[in-house]
């Protein structure tokens, strides 16, 4: 039974990451992404997955999908039906699954009860758009319409992933706008910390879609130059697409099977900003709440954070509010905490952002470097903290990542390097 849950352990299990898969406009897989984020490579270019000719900008972070998918339990027809978002998700999940060694069936029965927790804002929106275009076209054939509707829905993507990797369990989709991915990872941690599960597959994914692109453009939130989070002359965000999936385990479970540990998630905080549907509280009140809550759960102080991966969209309102929140959170220590927003390189991945940025923190902790924002120009003077502006080596133990979304969904995660 899912409820009542078993009594909570006296001491909450520690949550470790044993596998991580990542797909971003920088490429597919850990290696190419780690190198891209370490060097601050930018992967924003012309949109090709739909026509953006009539928009104010035609730039976004687009993934070049491989022509073939890795071998999984999906048949050829199932693979052919997969929406773009589902392909991004599958690529990231397979990488995480294999890195964790979960593809070796140890006979433990966990595959029949493996929770899946994913964040997304629009699931297979591209399929939904195609469905709608054909629906309103007089005389259009209904052939394929049921498949389009199926692939549009997040539940279908969960079932496809379960078929692909041969597991079953509860599937939870968190759609908290741009905080979805971070909330999904945080929720997965809670499942382990409460003793409900030993393992959880968690992450976030979103593909570029015309509706969402037009939506952000209608709000004049897209940059007409280049996305430069925390720059004094920033003028908006760039959209992107991608996915990140992690295999989370209790430390006990991971060590019992001799898994390689990539890092530990030690803190999670979530709060709601009720200031406005699309604008953050100008002083970043809810952001401050989540950073404090995440550090409190981690049992650390701001001084312990060696790198802060900001939400940093590049819009004037978000970055201003987040900068004030970081200043308030760090206090006099703000000038000693390096901050950057990796959205400068890949754009805003919406429902995938929080999960992708968690993996970036994992890479930075393990590789002992800080992800830079290049060609930033003059930094907004409100930032009392240093922005990482060049590839930098740094040995640090804790990283914090922020995700703030439409509707006031705010989340922060604290990660700890696993000692080697």
């Amino acid at each position, binding site marked *: 039974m899912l409820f*009542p849950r078993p009594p909570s352990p006296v001491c909450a299990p520690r949550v470790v990451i044993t596998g991580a898969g990542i797909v971003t406009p920088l490429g597919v897989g850990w290696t190419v992404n780690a190198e891209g984020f370490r060097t601050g490579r930018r992967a924003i270019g012309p949109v090709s997955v739909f026509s953006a000719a009539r928009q104010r900008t035609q730039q976004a972070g687009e993934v070049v999908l491989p022509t073939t998918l890795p071998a999984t339990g999906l048949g050829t027809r199932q693979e052919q039906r997969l929406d773009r978002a589902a392909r991004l998700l599958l690529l990231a999940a397979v990488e995480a699954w294999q890195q964790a060694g979960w593809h070796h069936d140890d006979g433990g029965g966990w595959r029949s009860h493996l929770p899946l927790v994913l964040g997304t804002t629009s699931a297979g929106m591209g399929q939904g758009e195609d469905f709608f275009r054909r629906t309103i076209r007089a005389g259009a054939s209904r052939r394929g319409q049921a498949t389009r509707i199926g692939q549009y829905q997040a539940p279908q993507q969960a079932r496809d992933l379960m078929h692909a990797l041969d597991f079953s369990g509860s599937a939870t989709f968190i759609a908290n706008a741009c905080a979805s991915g971070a909330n999904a990872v945080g929720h997965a941690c809670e499942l382990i910390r409460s003793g409900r599960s030993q393992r959880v597959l968690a992450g976030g994914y979103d593909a570029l879609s015309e509706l969402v692109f037009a939506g952000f453009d209608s709000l004049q939130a897209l940059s007409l130059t280049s996305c430069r989070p925390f720059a004094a002359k920033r003028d908006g965000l760039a959209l992107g697409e991608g996915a990140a999936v992690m295999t989370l385990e209790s430390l006990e479970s991971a060590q019992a099977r001799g898994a390689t540990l990539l890092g530990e998630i030690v803190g999670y905080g979530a709060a709601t900003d009720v200031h406005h549907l699309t604008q953050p509280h100008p002083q970043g009140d809810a952001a401050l709440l989540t950073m404090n809550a995440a550090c409190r759960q981690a049992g650390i102080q701001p001084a312990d954070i060696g790198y802060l991966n900001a939400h940093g969209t590049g819009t004037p309102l978000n970055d201003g509010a987040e900068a004030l929140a970081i200043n308030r959170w760090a206090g006099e220590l703000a000038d000693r905490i390096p901050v950057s927003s990796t959205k400068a390189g890949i754009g805003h991945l919406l429902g995938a952002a929080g999960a992708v940025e968690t993996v970036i923190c994992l890479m930075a902790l393990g590789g002992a470097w800080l992800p830079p924002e290049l060609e930033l120009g003059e930094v907004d003077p409100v930032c009392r903290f240093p922005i990482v502006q060049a590839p930098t080596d740094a040995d640090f133990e804790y990283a914090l990542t922020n995700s703030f979304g439409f509707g006031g969904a705010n989340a922060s995660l604290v990660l700890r390097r696993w000692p080697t």
Partner: protein
Amino acid sequence: MNRVYVHGWGAVSPAGWGCGSLVDALNAGVALTTTPTAGPNGAMLPGRRVPTPTPRPAWMAQARLRRSSLISQFTVGAVLEALAQAEAGPAGPIERARLGVVFNVFGGSVIYSRRFFEEVLVNPAQASPLLFPETVFNAPASHLAAVLGSRAPNHTLVSDQSGFLQGLSVAADWLADGNLEACVVVGAEEWDWSVAVAARLFDRASTLGEGAGALVLRRAPGPVELQGLSDPVPYVRATTRRSAAGKVRDQLQLAFPTARFPELRATAVLGDGLAATGAWECAAAVAGVAAGGSAHQGPSALVITGATLQAQGVCFARSGPA
């Protein structure tokens, strides 16, 4: 302690605004009248729609709700009814800073999404910036948090008809963790022809409904106890909807041998409310358990069979001595 109680319940449905009208309609068991609405290319599509409330509730005039979608209004209506009941009980008022929100949808804000995309197809450069923010899945939950003044965790979950039970599970976990005093769980949906067309691809006789259902959960003892939630059984491998529902029923019968399984037939009476369906059935079951009076005084169990993802079950019982 791990016990969770239901302190309030509310509903907005094609039967009207309020859980009473929902229960009356389900008890009568008669399918409500459908309203035909023009769809694309001259098609007329039936739907069971929520009637306009008379008089118009004062809360609808709040600034955050002035341009909000119907789904947001249904959500707020159901939750305020449930919350008023919860706070009138012996456990008293709920501290808003410790009131969590779990919002469940399947289609979400489909009216504004469809209208916005229609504008995009005509000319994306002139698509309305007023519409887009309301298309986001968590917009209704955001409005609800603003109306309630809740800064506590607030999750929007996307699932199918069974999603409401997943929401109950998340809320119960939050309460067990001890950080929240109470949590509202709401499932909501609004009718639009775009979804009606899609539903008919899978079932030509499908008639969609709309509305919301809500429960307020607390750890303090209340009139109804959430006794159990089954494990969800997803439709993967060889598991069909029918076999999944059977497995869920078996779990519930094993755990709660005296439970009865009331035939609520919400979809037949109110239309398929998608995410609202599970919420309606839970609200009606809780109302029935709380009212007592029937020959059966034991627990009531429900199996909610989702259309696309999974089946799950729940069991409610009238509270005994705390």
